[in-house]
């Protein structure tokens, strides 16, 4: 039985005091894009916030031939370029870079992993580290299994201290590959040491969905099928696929966004209150939602899903090429850049409430939001005329870019007559709190160092999500429904609007 450690009495009252134990973090793919843009700047900012303890060391591992010094120089450049906080503090940066090391690792060579193990052991001694290790796979998903196997072969997953591995989404390509990945990782690491990172969950506003629902007593009583008409989730991007053509053309909007971000937002919106904000309690409830979602099969898929691909159009005043004209995209690609679907959650709370989800690229604007639309009042006390300008009540949870929450309700227009109009009560994060929100990676990296997996995806969550998505992907491969096109800069193909029109509803324009 794990003995609960007494809290450090000196840490009491230090708000936001979260500091990791000394550890070595090995970043595989340390010279790559994710490492340079996100991980190293996030670690620097953690150092700046005094969240990295004395002795914390980072070992970069990649194919390139680099010295420690050259890696430090590269890291310094990336931090200068991408750090959230500017200007860079030279003394903190210098101290942080001092604890950066580099080992060339060819993932196929066990000897390289042995050399890595040797370097890590040396750091244990010099930095008073009790064997704690974090292995971050900032590499393409196909390498995860190889890395895990080699870590085991080199004995890097055992010994004193903790041994954790972090992998980035996508967690597999389908249910089968996700299970294989899980099995491999679980052979090397205990499940509670596997941190599947979906950076969306590190966003303050995503976490605030739970705070909004469960820290207030006024919303939960109305958060069910009795009063809610429908839920709309929009994850829209104005950008195209940028340099990710090779990856995206195999993934598409369903795998890239809906299987992970989209379904995560569904679970957070729909889950039952967990017993505590604790890793397994939260994730248990999320999995229950995924399992309660009515699977789409056969004709349901044609009637409840839409897929589209953007063609040349105008976004934010600029003409942009069509998807098939993008680099590394097949000229006859059938990959969807827009996906929309209607889901039902078959449980007591949500019976009969449709969840509409859409995600796409080259839409008119970048916005992520969840809109909870309420039913109309049962009786028109003020008459139809007075109410004609009133929309149903709605709560909108805005995830990005203007993080906040708004509540729409009817109010009397000041005049001698009686007219009701919709007004909006707005809460904006930016102007309501006196602190700056940390970057998602900072939060998640620190969670991983501390060993808190609440905001990471558990294996059963991943599998439950793929179980829902696999049949849709299968049907789409057979062109059911057919791929439609939409001009870049519009809200998707015509069928997306029809999906809601068929139910007597329409998409909210974010």
């Amino acid at each position, binding site marked *: 039985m794990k003995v609960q450690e007494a809290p450090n009495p*000196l840490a009491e009252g230090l708000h936001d005091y979260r*500091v990791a134990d000394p550890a070595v973090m090995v970043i595989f793919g340390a010279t790559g894009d994710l490492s340079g843009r996100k991980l190293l700047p996030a670690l620097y900012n953690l150092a700046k916030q*005094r969240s990295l303890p*004395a002795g914390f060391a980072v070992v970069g591992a990649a194919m390139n031939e680099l010295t420690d010094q050259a890696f430090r120089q590269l890291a310094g450049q990336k931090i200068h370029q991408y750090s959230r906080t500017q200007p860079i*503090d030279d003394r*903190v940066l210098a*101290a942080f870079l001092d604890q950066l090391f580099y080992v060339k690792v060819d993932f196929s060579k066990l000897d390289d992993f042995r050399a890595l193990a040797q370097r890590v052991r040396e750091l244990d001694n010099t930095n008073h580290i*009790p064997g704690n290790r974090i292995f971050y796979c900032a590499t393409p998903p196909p390498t995860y299994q190889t890395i895990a196997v080699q870590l085991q072969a080199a004995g890097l997953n055992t010994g004193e201290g903790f041994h954790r591995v972090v992998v980035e989404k996508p967690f597999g390509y389908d249910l089968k590959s996700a299970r294989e990945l899980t099995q491999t990782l679980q052979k090397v690491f205990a499940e509670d040491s596997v941190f599947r990172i979906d950076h969306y969950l590190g966003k303050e506003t995503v976490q605030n969905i739970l705070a909004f629902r469960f820290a207030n007593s006024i919303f939960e009583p109305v958060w069910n099928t009795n009063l809610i008409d429908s839920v709309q989730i929009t994850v829209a991007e104005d950008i195209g696929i940028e340099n990710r053509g090779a990856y995206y053309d195999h993934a598409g909007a369903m795998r890239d966004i809906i299987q992970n971000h989209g379904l995560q937002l569904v679970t957070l919106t729909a889950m039952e209150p967990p017993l505590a904000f604790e890793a397994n309690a939260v994730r248990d409830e999320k999995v229950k939602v995924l399992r309660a979602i009515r699977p789409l099969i056969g004709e349901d898929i044609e009637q409840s899903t839409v897929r589209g691909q953007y063609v040349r159009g105008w976004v934010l005043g600029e003409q942009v090429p069509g998807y098939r004209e993008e680099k590394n995209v097949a000229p006859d690609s059938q990959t969807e850049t827009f996906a929309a679907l209607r889901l039902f959650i078959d449980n007591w709370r949500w019976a009969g409430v449709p969840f509409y989800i859409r995600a796409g690229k080259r839409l008119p604007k970048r916005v992520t939001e969840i809109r909870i639309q309420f039913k109309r009042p049962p009786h028109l006390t003020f008459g139809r005329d007075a109410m004609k300008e009133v929309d149903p009540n709605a709560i909108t949870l805005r995830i990005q870019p203007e993080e906040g929450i708004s509540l729409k309700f009817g109010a009397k227009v000041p005049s001698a007559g009686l007219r009701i109009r919709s007004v909006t009560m707005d809460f904006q994060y930016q*102007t*309501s709190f006196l602190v700056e929100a940390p970057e998602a990676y900072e939060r998640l990296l620190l969670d991983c160092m501390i060993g808190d997996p609440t905001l990471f995806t558990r294996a059963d969550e991943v599998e439950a999500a793929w179980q829902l998505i696999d049949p849709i992907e299968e049907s789409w491969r057979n062109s059911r429904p057919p791929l439609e096109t939409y001009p870049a800069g519009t809200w998707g193909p015509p069928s997306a609007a029809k999906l809601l029109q068929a139910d007597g509803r329409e998409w909210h324009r974010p």
Partner: protein
Amino acid sequence: MSTTVRPGTETAWHGEDVTIREVLDALEAIRARFARSEAGDDEHVHPRNCVMTLISVTPSEADELSAEQTTLLIGREHPAQAIVIREEAPVRGHKLDARIGTEVQRPQMGCPTECEIITIHVGGQAADHLAELLDPLLVSGVPTYLWWLGTPPFGKKELLDALRICDGLVVDSARFEEPHRSFHGLSRLLKVAHHRLGLADMQWSRLRPWRETIAQFFTPADRRKFLSGIAEVGVDYAGEGRGNRIAAALVTGWMAAALGWKLKRAAAGPGGVVVAHYEAGARSVEVAFRSVQKDHLAPGELSAIRIAGASQGTTFRLTVQHDPERRAAQAEPAYRTLHPTEGEDDAGFELAERRAEWHRDVLHENIESLHHTATGDPPGESRPKRPVVLSRDRRRPDSQRVLLTMIEIGEGAPLRHVQQLDREDEVALLLDLLSTGTHDEVFNRSLAEASALVDRF
């Protein structure tokens, strides 16, 4: 009331010998005008947001300017009802002089907001009844914070009266004119103020990086045992005398309260070192306070903390040092804000520059000795009555300040660690205090312990 040299805001209204009712009417008119002008023809008026009422009580014109600037910077990002109060002798009528300054923010995303700062000069008996004066100006449903620049009138009815309408009082014990005496006053407030009142001290906030660094050392599971093995603590502080030992007492009080140490005695030792003896269960812990001369530190600032001991046969030593590599301080630009150019021509700049130079050379260089000659007080007992000069001088808006940590465990090689200190200007400290609330039980306990220790000095 002067309406010139107000950085940032535009004077939207000012009145002399007015009532609060007139201030409220003016405020309402300003807000309505702004809402209408921003709404346009077809749009509805944007909702108004407010996260707190922040009242600043200022003892001098320089403080008033400083408070206006600070609240403006906070208000730019966080809509607040900002009120700046200055007590002055009534020169006309029996009412008050007031000014409303406004600044409009137009964020790229979101609605424009107007930040208003209400500055009120109040004199005579009205100044003794701040609660009644300010109550109508408070925003309902959001917390009210009272930021008292300088030394609050501890023990006086007027302070308790003002605290009636507040959820939190913010002071800076590093700016108290008589630090030793006023610190006791602050501590006594814990007992006499209403239970909702939160107490916050900017000096305590400045200690946060020290507290974090010390806590961090003991956080790993394998080092937790060292907490019960602490035998010696050394605290170095800049300046001389008991008045400069307040921060040192606070950090010691924090450790004592957290670790359950009981103060037994404190006595002066050789070389100006004061030693406090604590009982920690069956052990004793000795805390030595040493005054050091550090040009780059202001009187009272911590210079270093050393914690040493042994547990289960392993010795440990933690040393945290303030800015050991810091260069000599640059000439303080804050003096220049006391000497506005009143014009942007070369002659104006030249004149202001010369006044600032004179101010620094004549007043600052000799201010401590001039003060002690004038008052006869021993070093550290009281501070010169130009706190704004001192406080700005001591708190440079400098992001390059660090703590250097040295860790020695057993026979292992020392481990060096550098950590950045937070910004220590008033805006940053206030933001931090207000964002986390002023109810801090750890501070209250530490303050009580520190006060008991200061008693023995």
